[in-house]
């Protein structure tokens, strides 16, 4: 198992290198530079800025500078932030993004699996329809629509929860953003769980369990749930990487700190270092999460383990 994980990690190094190289050069092809804006800077000032960030050197030389710094673990400066370099910005944003993302992730699984199981057990009956319809709302409506509606209802009309901000990080500040982030995933997880559960419930070993006189709750919890989770787990990898890289929409509507905004803003601002930094961070995260999914697979399915 360990050597498998190690091999997997090793194989990502060339992928990472190709991605960084491609990203580095493609970025420079984009029109407009980091210092373009409503106010054009005089040439002398631009010259000073370019020299300050080594942008006046030939591109290939800049590339070697970047890669050698990267090997030392230095992600370089950010053009849009003088006081925090790329690594510092990511480190500052991560705790917030992870708190939000993990909470949303757990919530999505709990709601999704519970609703999915209920739907499967009461297949084509009232609870299935009602829950199915409710969860569909979360999937169909985009977060930039749901978020302002929740803010209006719970923040202003009912005044139960803060409209936005991180505040002191207490639960009431997390409720709305976490719900907005979790909803679509809860919806998808519930659909996958329901389908897979229905399939499992028709298998022979479940019939055997029922024939032995085991009650429905025990049948589901002890026998059906684990095999029914296989397709859900394969969805959890991408879902986790989506949630843990933050959400531009949720962060900008709720005014929360986090790394979700970095990538898009950095690309728009031609903040070369920040774009590369986030690309590297995302790749590492995705590789890591996929590895966890594979390990979880092995735990759930003996067929995978023994291969």
């Amino acid at each position, binding site marked *: 198992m360990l050597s498998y994980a190690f091999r997997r990690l090793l194989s990502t190094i060339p992928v990472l290198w190709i991605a960084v190289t491609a990203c580095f050069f493609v970025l420079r092809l984009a029109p407009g530079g980091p210092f373009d804006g409503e106010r054009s800077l005089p040439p002398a000032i631009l010259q000073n800025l370019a020299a300050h960030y080594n942008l006046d050197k030939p591109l290939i030389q800049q590339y070697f500078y970047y890669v050698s710094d990267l090997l030392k673990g230095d992600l370089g400066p950010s053009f849009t932030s003088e006081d925090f370099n790329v690594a510092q910005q990511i480190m500052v944003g991560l705790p917030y993004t992870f708190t939000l993302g993990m909470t949303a992730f757990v919530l999505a699984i709990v709601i999704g699996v519970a609703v999915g199981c209920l739907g499967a057990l009461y297949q084509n009956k009232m609870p299935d329809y009602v829950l199915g319809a409710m969860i569909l709302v979360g999937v169909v409506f985009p977060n930039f629509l749901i978020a302002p509606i929740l803010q209006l209802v719970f923040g202003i009309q009912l005044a139960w929860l803060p*409209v936005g901000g991180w505040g002191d990080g207490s639960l009431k500040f997390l409720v709305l953003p976490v719900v907005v982030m979790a909803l679509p995933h809860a919806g998808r997880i519930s659909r996958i769980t329901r389908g897979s559960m229905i399939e499992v419930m028709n298998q022979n070993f479940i019939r055997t369990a029922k024939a032995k006189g085991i009650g429905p709750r025990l049948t589901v919890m002890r026998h059906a749930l684990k095999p029914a989770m296989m397709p859900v787990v394969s969805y959890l990898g991408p879902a986790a990487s989506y949630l843990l890289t933050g959400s531009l929409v949720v962060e900008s*509507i709720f005014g929360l700190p986090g790394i979700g905004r970095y990538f898009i803003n950095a690309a728009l601002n031609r903040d070369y270092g920040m774009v590369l930094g986030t690309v590297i961070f995302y790749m590492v995260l995705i590789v890591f999460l996929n590895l966890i999914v594979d390990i979880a697979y092995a735990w759930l399915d003996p067929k995978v383990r023994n291969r």
Partner: protein
Amino acid sequence: MYHFSKKFLATAMFGALLACSAHAATLNIHNGGDPKSLDPQKLSGDWENRIAGDIFEGLVTEDAKVNPIPGQAESWTVSDDGLVYTFKLRDGIKWSDGQPVTAGDFVFSFQRLMDPKAAADYAYLQYTIKNAEKINKGEITDLNELGVKAIDDKTLEITLENPTPYFINALMHYTAYPVPKHVVEAKGADWVKIGTIVTNGPYKPTEWIPGSHVTTVKNDQYYGAADLKIDGAKFFVLEDQEAALKRYRAGEFDILTDFPTDQYDWMQKNLPGQAHVAPFSGLYYYVINSQKGPTADKRVRQALSMAINREVIGPQILGTGELPAYSWVPPGTANYGEPAYVSWKDEPYKQKVEEAKKLITEAGFGPDKPLSIELKYNTNDNHKRIAVAIAAMWKPLGVNVQLINAETKVHYDQLKRGDVEVGRAGWLADYNDPDNFLSLLMTGVANNYGRWSNAEFDKLIKDGNAEKDLKKRAEMFKKAEQLALDDSAALPIYYYVSKNVVSPKISGFEDNVQDTHRTRWLSIKE
């Protein structure tokens, strides 16, 4: 027992502390973007200015209406030739760590601003200081050649290249704020980190969570600390204006520094008196290429300018009542009086269109040879609405308009390279003086995107800036402005307005043309 009581005491004290802080008057400001830095020499945006101006103070500072008043300097004198300013610093001014603020700090700060190695974006705003430009361009390497000298700890002498009537106004700008020499030298680039940073303004920063907020508290070392009615401020990062308005309605923000224009009607009905819309010294205009393409013909430029129905743009397209612009310098600009206007300003719109049609025909365009124009703007809902409306206004002239939008960086890159026929741009004044607008149209200036060039205009601006008599200077500038307008050097469209929403519990908020509202002039009713 002993242990318990100690714990209890601590809890009680903490509780008391909390109760205290709940009473402290804290201002919650919706500030827009994330600041690039707390270092005043590294900034360029108004959201950064709001923080910097609360935590630092220059020789000259602004009152609630943004008139210059003595800041760290208690008084100053100007030599007869207008070139040498001598500032006398206040007694007992200190940095937030208790160290005195000296003339040496100012010398150090101005030298640092001009040092090419420091690469300050905005250094050029202080190019009026003797040798500043040469140092910043690397032509002079000895920083001591800069025209800023400490006569003693309390006396600072600044020598200028030319007499500059707006110099005192320019000193209110954040590029002229001092940085603490003793901390910058000891800590290097880290001097600006929370915990290390030392400031000389009414407030000092205590917390910065990127993407969330910057917190400031009263600086007890500030000479006016006793008069401050607000104990601290939180500057929130939030670019979504709809969300900001919701948070304001929920009482989470006391001041919004911008609001969605389509909500203005609603706010006037539901939040009466809270939305402040006021003239702002800024101009929304279209760049027009005067070097190549059909717009190189003056008649085409004038026709396009005349056919824009400016009266409907503020009230109907934007909904916030921005005033139509027929001048290049916004009215109300200091040292100027009434600006020059286009000659056809007061004609009825119908007549303007008729004349515009004639001009287009004279220029050789018509049904057989229709005029095609590319209109570029940076992606934004309001820019789009205006561009669509103006394209429709040009239609009766027989002009085919192709609308091209691009993200901001790409748009300005195109403008800078001169790859534009007509393109959207805007200018917000850095300091309250006509020079700040007029110099945009000088030959060879980076911001002169339309590449309009007129030797007489250039000379008038140059001579005007060397003129000590403000009246004569204003006349020369007005002559220059008239030249530019008569030649349709660019198409002014509307003057910006500032858009703030201010809670009724805030007092001391004065609308002003620079849209600068320092926390030290505000107070909160609980």
